[in-house]
């Protein structure tokens, strides 16, 4: 059972990546990308790398998402 966790989260990462590629607008793509980062963090925990998982959860799932949303807001402002 525990051996299946790694492949399971890898599969979820692939699903998230495909969903982010096919998302309708940038905002949902960014949100799905945050979920991708979270699954990759959990995958690092399964692979016994808690330090990397910690960094991935903090940077990938929180900071990059906020920065991407801010960047989208700025670029859509310039379009108007």
């Amino acid at each position, binding site marked *: 059972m525990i051996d299946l966790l790694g492949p399971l989260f890898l599969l979820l990462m692939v699903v998230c990546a495909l969903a982010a590629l096919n998302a309708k607008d940038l905002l949902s793509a960014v949100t799905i990308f945050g979920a991708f980062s979270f699954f990759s963090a959990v995958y690092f925990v399964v692979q016994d790398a808690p330090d990397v998982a910690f960094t991935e959860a903090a940077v990938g799932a929180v900071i990059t998402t906020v920065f991407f949303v801010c960047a989208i807001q700025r670029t859509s*402002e310039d379009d108007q």
Partner: protein
Amino acid sequence: MRSTFGSPVLDAAARLLAPFMWLFAAYVVIHGHESPGGGFQAGVIVAASIILLRLVRGRLAASVLTSRDALTLACLGPLLYGGIGIASFFFGGNFLDYGVFPFPMEPSEVRAMGTLGIEIGVAVGVAGVLVLIFDALARWEDGTL
């Protein structure tokens, strides 16, 4: 920032969360020797708490840490790191050779103290840089920081 999404519930939640995030960051950087964590993660957590306050409370929260303070912190981090590295010259060591500091402890504990110092430097620098990037991205309407 054009608008914030503050509401009483979000406001209360952010105010409750922020101190605990700071406490957790302090734990992560101080306890980084024994458990997963370190300066980089702690800096990111501090930056996340400040960004949360800014997202929810807008300009009111800028007094927690203004952008100029963030710039100062971003410069202080590498300065602290390099300062500890250079300070070991004065006790006859190489650059970043913390074992030479004359603390009254075991040699390994002296090294641990030096490591803690540079981890704090990393945390301060990373937190300052991330808050600075957020402020640059989501700056106020009049274009000032």
